[in-house]
């Protein structure tokens, strides 16, 4: 009897392990499938001009201005969302225990996660683009900053959610030890807790970055797009996803190729960023024992 129980347990274990390997295989298969498709459709577009010429020249041009624009927009978005998101997540995990506001904000944050991105874009249009038009007599309307704010609104709930979860998983013993040594709470939070949860928080920021770097809809009425090169954050700013979207709709197959090439570059950019961030932050892993 105990032998059969042992066998059942072993079989159960083996089945679970196999299924887990299969699941990973499924994930990797789809990644390979999609990447292969972008690469094979876009390989003809992967030439130096892609990185040096601007979109205004269409098939004789490249995506240089869109790449620069995407970089600026993502940097603005992440620079706004990361501090606010990490601090809000920290408040939820460490400070909101006695307050009714905590669960409410956590709940609202989850709703914000699913807000359709075009709606957030229209919201930023109302609170940033229209006021700046009015303040500057129409000189500044759509801008990189408005686009960055829209992206920040999309990144924010992702960062809040992950920071909150990661901090709550830091063992209470760490807090107790620090507090018993007389460390003030802010120091405990900044120097011990956030450090302990760092790798998880970085994962959250990376997920947020990955998500916003592919967004099109929120940028239409905020950053607007630009067929020419610009480095000016208050100018109308192009972005890769928006150009990719436009180029996939184009009648010309040569332009469609550029869209796939742009998608491949964008994906590789996200991959590179993820690898660099993991390399930089993985060295100081804190044990949870």
């Amino acid at each position: 009897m105990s032998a059969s129980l042992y066998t059942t347990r072993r079989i159960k274990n083996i089945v679970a392990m196999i299924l887990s390997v299969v699941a990973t295989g499924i994930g990797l298969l789809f990644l390979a499938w999609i990447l292969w498709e972008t690469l094979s459709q876009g390989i003809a577009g992967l030439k130096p001009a892609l990185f040096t010429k601007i979109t205004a020249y269409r098939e004789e041009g490249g995506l240089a201005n869109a790449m620069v624009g995407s970089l600026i927009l993502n940097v603005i978005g992440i620079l706004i969302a990361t501090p606010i998101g990490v601090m809000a997540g920290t408040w939820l995990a460490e400070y909101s225990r006695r307050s009714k506001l905590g669960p409410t904000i956590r709940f609202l944050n989850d709703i914000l996660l699913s807000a359709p991105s075009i709606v957030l874009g229209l919201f930023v249009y109302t609170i940033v683009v229209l006021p700046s038009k009015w303040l500057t007599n129409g000189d500044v309307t759509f801008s990189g900053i408005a686009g960055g704010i829209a992206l920040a609104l999309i990144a924010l709930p992702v960062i809040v959610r992950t920071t909150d979860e990661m901090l709550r998983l830091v063992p209470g013993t760490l807090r107790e030890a620090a507090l018993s040594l007389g460390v003030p709470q802010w120091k405990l939070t900044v120097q011990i807790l956030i450090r302990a949860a760092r790798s998880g928080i970085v994962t959250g920021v990376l997920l947020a970055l990955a998500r916003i770097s592919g967004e099109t809809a929120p940028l239409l009425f905020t950053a607007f797009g630009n067929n020419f090169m610009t480095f000016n954050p208050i100018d109308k700013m192009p972005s890769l996803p928006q150009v990719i979207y436009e180029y996939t709709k184009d009648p010309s197959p040569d332009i469609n190729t550029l869209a796939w090439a742009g998608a491949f570059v964008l994906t590789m950019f996200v991959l590179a960023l993820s690898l660099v961030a993991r390399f930089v932050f993985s060295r100081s892993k804190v044990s949870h024992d």
Partner: protein
Amino acid sequence: MHATVSSNAPTTARAEEAARNARDTRNDRLFGGLLKTCALIVLVSLVGAAASTLWLGRDAFATFGWGFLTSSAWDPTNNQYGALVPVMGTVTTALIALIFAVPVSFGIALFLTEIAPNWLRGPVSSAIELLAGIPSIIYGMWGLFIFAPFVATYIKPWLMNNLSADPPDGKISWLVQHVPFIAKFFSSEYPFFGAGVLTAGLVLAIMIIPFISSVMREVFQTVPTRLKESAYALGSSTWEVVWDIVVPYTRTAVIGGIFLGLGRALGETMAVAFVLGNTFKFTPSILETGSSIASTIANQFGEAEGLQKSALMAIAFLLFVVTFIVLTIARLMLRRLASKEGS
């Protein structure tokens, strides 16, 4: 100066300590205030976004009243709009996505934390996260050009042969003859057409796998090694350690990760717009085409004017409401689960 300080050392030390305490208290309060302000920014953005959709959608709500929720009309030339089909499509596609994505993500996280050799973990988790970095428009194009034809050739005919009352091979299956209503969920007017609710749900599943699996992996790693090692020492298998130790320990965070994925699935726009078919016919079948809230907005916003624009904003507001209801149900289920375990 120095002399006086040292002569009064005990008092000064106490004074210094008091001052430090006061400073710490003040800093603590400032720090807490700063954090709280950031948390309030989250609150304000959501309330602002939701309120703006409600305001812009007020015409549609005023014109159609409660009928807006139950009508399946979407007729821009006669200005008749109802939210039923997009709301249904949003919920169904997100549900299908979760049904596929949660087990797969769990498997991936299990593989990455318990099974894979160390050298493999980094590359594989980066690769899975890369799925989150692919722009959603590319999921849409891949779905349109590659995946929908794949569904139309391999998955849909098989499902219809086995589960629909109108199978392409003409033989009505045992299941359809004996299980009532099942055929309703798998009927299709166009057997060889790949776009539809199921296809959209599957594409969404692929899109949300990295969100759920990354969070799961991350939180599985935080389980204290000594807990796991004690279980292993008692003779537990890897699966038992994961199911009995790791999952209960990390449960709320795992749910958090699933919400992260669910949120993305409910609000996703571009990928869905290409593979859902965007029709406004009310049908329970997951093999038929349908529409979702986000894809309807993306499809029609650029050309919409007047009441149509207002109706689009009104369904955007309903997406907030749908999310609210879905999350509330999930929360209640969690609570019941927790109380059951407690007893």
